[in-house]
């Protein structure tokens, strides 16, 4: 074909000017239509009528210093953070450590160690992340046991019934998360097993624990469990709570993981089989990495729920962060400052849960290999 036309792509032109810049953005997004404009105005009204007074009360006029309630009673226009300041050890570490100034280094050291291990993991460029993770998940709990529980190396044994505050919340959630993930993965795999016996056991386990309220499980663990064991055999109350929480949480994690497993196309397992990979190899190298990636949002969702649900241990007489803040606000010295106590506890819960949420979003983005570049 000697006379074929030559194809010349048309050049790109710049977009119209009135679709660019901040003014265009505001017009487009905030005042794009009548209903949108009304919504924007209502929101602005609510924002300015509630946020500045709260900031004034919580920050600008607040009481920060002092050692007793007299300073707060003198200035009632602001929040009484003095209360939190004075009772910080009790709210963070519980009654046992708050009552023994000599032992305060133990929970303090544990939290410093935890953050020292955790923070580097959040940055992409950190070298040796694998070893840091192994230390955090494997070595840290052991250190926690010896330092906080004590009883060896000349460290006095702490009374677990007096554990409390954020330390207890942290211990329950950490153990629950750490143990529930592997157990949950095995349960989820078992639920999809071709062997009817394994499948039934996993289904029954998951449905039983998922169908029972955590508060019932904790109550049973505390009140009923001792009835099944001979007198004298006594489980630690905190251990019982940990077992109950792990059982409960693993059922939820299993269902979150199952969702991910169900989303993996059958062709993935078939391709792995065709290459001669056996069940465990294809599960570990092919199926789980993909399934867990998909289930990150729902797994983290259950972890966040667990972190907050630990406050239900108050039913068996353990005082976690929330209950300790409440207890402190009902003491004779600080009666009436419940709001500050709740706000402080709420803020700590929020900070941890938001951290988990952000980390999971980060992880999802990092593991997304489907992006084209």
């Amino acid at each position: 074909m000697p006379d074929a036309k030559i194809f010349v792509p048309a050049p790109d032109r710049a977009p119209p000017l009135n679709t660019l810049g901040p003014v265009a953005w505001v017009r487009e997004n905030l005042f794009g239509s009548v209903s949108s404009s009304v919504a924007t105005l209502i929101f602005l009204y609510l924002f300015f009528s509630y946020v500045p007074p709260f900031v004034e009360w919580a920050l600008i006029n607040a009481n920060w210093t002092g050692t007793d309630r007299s300073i707060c009673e003198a200035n009632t226009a602001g929040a009484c953070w003095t209360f939190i300041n004075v009772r910080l050890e009790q709210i963070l570490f519980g009654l046992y450590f708050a009552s023994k100034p000599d032992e305060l280094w133990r929970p303090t050291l544990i939290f410093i160690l935890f953050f020292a291990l955790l923070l580097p993991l959040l940055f992409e460029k950190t070298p040796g992340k694998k070893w840091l993770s192994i230390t955090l998940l494997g070595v840290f709990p052991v250190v926690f046991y010896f330092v906080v529980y004590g009883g060896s190396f000349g460290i006095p044994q702490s009374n677990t019934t007096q554990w409390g505050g954020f330390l207890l919340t942290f211990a329950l959630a950490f153990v629950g998360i750490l143990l529930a993930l592997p157990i949950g993965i095995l349960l989820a795999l078992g639920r999809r097993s071709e062997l009817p016996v394994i499948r039934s056991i996993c289904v029954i386990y998951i449905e039983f624990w998922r169908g029972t309220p955590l508060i019932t499980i904790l109550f049973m663990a505390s009140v009923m469990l001792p009835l099944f064991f001979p007198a004298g055999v006594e489980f630690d109350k905190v251990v019982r709570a940990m077992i109950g929480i792990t059982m409960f949480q693993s059922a939820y994690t299993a269902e979150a993981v199952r969702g991910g497993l169900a989303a993996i196309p059958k062709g993935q397992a078939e391709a792995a089989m065709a290459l001669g990979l056996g069940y465990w190899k294809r599960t570990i190298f092919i199926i789980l990495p993909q399934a867990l990636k998909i289930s990150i949002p729902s797994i983290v969702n259950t972890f966040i729920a667990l972190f907050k649900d630990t406050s239900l241990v108050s039913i068996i007489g353990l005082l976690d962060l929330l209950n300790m803040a409440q207890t402190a606000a009902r003491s004779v010295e600080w009666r009436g400052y419940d709001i500050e106590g709740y706000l402080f506890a709420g803020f700590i819960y929020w900070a941890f849960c938001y951290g988990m949420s952000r980390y999971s979003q980060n992880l999802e983005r990092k593991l997304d290999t489907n992006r084209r570049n």
Partner: protein
Amino acid sequence: MTTETHIESAELGDTIIKIDGLNKWYGQFHVLKDIDLHVKRGERIVICGPSGSGKSTLIRCINRLETHQEGSIVVDGIELTEDTKHINDVRREVGMVFQHFNLFPHLTVLENCTLAPIWVRKTPKREAEEMAMRYLERVKIPEQANKYPGQLSGGQQQRVAIARSLCMNPRVMLFDEPTSALDPEMIAEVLDVMVGLAEDGMTMLCVTHEMGFARKVANRVIFMDGGQIVEQNEPEEFFNNPQNDRTQLFLSQILQH
């Protein structure tokens, strides 16, 4: 189409796949009926037929992605039974390429190729990587080795899938409609790789409707319908002189366009 010359085949070796009296049911549905098929080393077989005729199921039985209820399948001297060890022994020697590629999306192209050699054949990592690069060169995409499958085109993905299978040094390659999911522009690049494999003497069973490929490469073309082998012959005879009226109808339908 007929202008392409047929690849001359070397002398065929002994029988590597022996299928005798194979029957398979999906519940009540009788999907494979009394299949007898012997494949010699170096033989290249193209299987065609209408959808639902059992052609994919047949080749999926050869590496036990599907179980059969009656008859026997012996691959390279190993009979396929419930025995998991035997199944994995067979799968190690039989490569498979799928219609939808089935690459592992969370692994790079290179990792896709080295995973099975490292964990199944226990090949040292460096050796496995060198071998993978050789096969990626052979399918003409060594420069994509560190990309993820999601960043490649369909044709490139299918070529990686072929390289991944070759890295296990299989004795037989099964192709299950390898070009059906590809855009027309990409079919040729995949078929080229498959022709190259045929030229090197690979034993191949290929479910495909690419009749040009069949004419050029196959020693034998098999036509299946209703779970049976209706007709099989050398490609020239098969296309120019089909014996069965069902075959004639099928060929007239697919060659008209």
